[in-house]
């Protein structure tokens, strides 16, 4: 049984189902209570679960994460919401130093099963502080897991996996997709395992690695290339840490060519690591250099003109695919 849900509804459904299943799961964040969150993700949950399982907090991102860590040490599974992913910078120390290191410094005798939900990404005229893609900072920090779903199906399945995972998971939900990505979502426990990529389109000529809001324009570009006789395999990473090396290498085995597309900036975006790993481990399989099409090294501007100027889109992805295919 499945029904069509939006990406946002899928997240809400995952939260509701996990909270019903496990009394240790609870939500905390700013305006997540009766208001239902800035984007409406938690709407209805306060009504169903009450004050103590849907906790409105003061504005204090660092405490929100710290509180989550504390609760998790007593067996709870808190799901903390950052109102925008951009504000995760205010909770940085608690995430990278407190949560990411705890198991290690406890000699493996404890773990921090928290989820930090962070609405990320641009293309909504949000400007510098409502459009960021902060995923790479967390990929760089051992002890964390990082996921970034692109479909309603995955939004639900990955959130369930994240909540059940015993490690701190940063869950980037792309705000452009909230109401735009819609699709079938199975009722009940369809877990999308952390660490497994999804092949969205098969093809033998070029491998395109991407995630989040870049999946749809990438697929569109792949369709265009097909008309030119080039078959592009589009892999949606879904999990950024640990990323699915096996799936990447398997595709590369067929194509020998890779394009990486992401909305995060270029320098030390996840694309850098993917490229470096392919270089180290599959150099001899490459017929062309791994290329990156990303947001340039700048901030996400508010102006529609400025923002659109650099977001990868089907045209620019098509161009980049042609370059990789014809190298």
């Amino acid at each position, binding site marked *: 049984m499945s029904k069509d849900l939006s990406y946002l509804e899928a997240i809400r459904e995952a939260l509701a189902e996990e909270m019903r299943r496990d009394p240790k799961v609870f939500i905390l964040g*700013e*305006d997540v*209570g*009766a*208001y239902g969150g*800035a984007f409406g993700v938690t709407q209805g949950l306060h009504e169903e679960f009450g004050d103590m399982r849907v906790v*409105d*907090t*003061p*504005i*204090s991102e*660092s405490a929100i994460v710290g509180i989550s860590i504390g609760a998790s040490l007593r067996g709870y599974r808190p799901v903390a919401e950052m109102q*925008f992913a*951009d*504000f995760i*910078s*205010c909770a940085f120390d608690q995430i990278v130093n407190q949560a990411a290191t705890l198991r290690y410094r406890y000699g493996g005798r404890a773990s921090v099963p928290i989820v930090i939900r962070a609405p990320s990404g641009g293309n909504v*005229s*949000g*400007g*510098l*502080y*409502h459009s960021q893609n902060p995923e790479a900072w967390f990929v760089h920090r051992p002890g964390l897991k990082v996921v970034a779903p692109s479909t309603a199906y995955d939004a639900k399945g990955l959130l369930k996996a994240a909540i059940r995972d015993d490690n701190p998971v940063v869950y980037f939900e792309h705000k452009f997709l909230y109401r735009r990505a819609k699709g079938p979502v199975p009722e009940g426990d369809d877990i999308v395992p952390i660490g497994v990529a999804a092949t969205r389109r098969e093809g033998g000529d070029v491998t395109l690695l991407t995630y989040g809001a870049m999946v749809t324009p990438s697929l569109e570009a792949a369709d265009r290339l097909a008309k030119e006789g080039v078959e592009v395999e589009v892999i949606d990473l879904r999990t950024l840490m640990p990323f699915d090396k096996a799936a990447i290498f398997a595709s590369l085995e067929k194509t020998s060519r890779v394009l990486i597309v992401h909305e995060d900036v270029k320098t030390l975006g996840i694309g850098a690591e993917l490229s470096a790993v392919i270089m180290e481990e599959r150099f001899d399989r490459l017929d062309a250099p791994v290329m990156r099409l990303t947001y*340039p*090294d*700048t*901030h996400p*501007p*508010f*102006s*529609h*003109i*400025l*923002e*659109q*100027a*650099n977001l990868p889109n089907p045209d620019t992805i098509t161009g980049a695919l042609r370059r990789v295919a014809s190298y």
Partner: protein
Amino acid sequence: MPSIKRTKFKLSPEQLLEMFYWLKLIRAFDERLSILVKQGKVRSGVYTGIGQEAIIVGTGFGLRKDDYICPLHRDLGSFLMKGVEPGVMMSQMFAKTTGLSKGRDSALHSGVSDLGIFGNTSMLGANLPVAAGLALTYKMEHTDNVVVAYFGEGASNVGDFHEALNFAGVQRLPIIFVCENNQYAYSVPIEKSMAIDDVADRAESYGFDGVAINGNDVLAVYQSTQGALARARSGEGPTLIECKTYRWHGHSEHDKAFYRTNEELAMWKSRDPIPTFTTYLKGLHVLSDQQEQDIVERVAKVIDEAVEFAMSAPDPKPEDAVTDLYA
């Protein structure tokens, strides 16, 4: 006609009229922005300060050009009082090159160093350490300049608030911290975000005075500010002024604000700072009906021209998304 001596700091009729003008202009500016959002002409998040103008005017009036302000999201009026042209401010909201950010961001996220205006990020509380740094330079220079820094009662729960006020207290910096306590942080009422009634009491943690005043009485705000300014200018250190007020609109123009009652809103609307002040001025014969009419017309003209200026101003060029990153 004698000058008004409401309490200690005297105001001439001309000054009172100027205050009146600012109240009207700032109200009109926000009201127009609200309409422009509904018309789909402004894409930015718009956070009006309608209902809170007495704070902006009462604290901003009589500041010197070489004093510094660190305003917040509801304080676009502060930019105008400090000398930014309405057309420039409107351009900022329209993402035009004539705006302070040249289209890179909207609202308060830009400043003007020559006018002593700091433009914050979105991160609540993050302007306060910066304000302390500005004030530190005045102390270093032994000048009598002052920094006026604004924050909401919700932002007073953020770590940066604490660190900044503590430093200001230790160094006895020439700074006034103005809390715009409008009862809500987005959907969260003050009772759910702090266990005290008056944010003013927090000053005690930092070794300086805090006062809670009627933020809808422009003269009360002015008097308190002048007292704090005089102390700061003579080296007696910081003051926290908590202004009790209310925002009439939702958190942003997209927020229906169902978390509060119509009665509450109506009660606060009955305390509208502008008619109260109008009646007061008329009682003193400082303001005639004709003068009021003239000011209303002048304000309308200023706003019309500002919108016209902004709408006909040039858009940024796509190339500018990647410029102005480094000096």
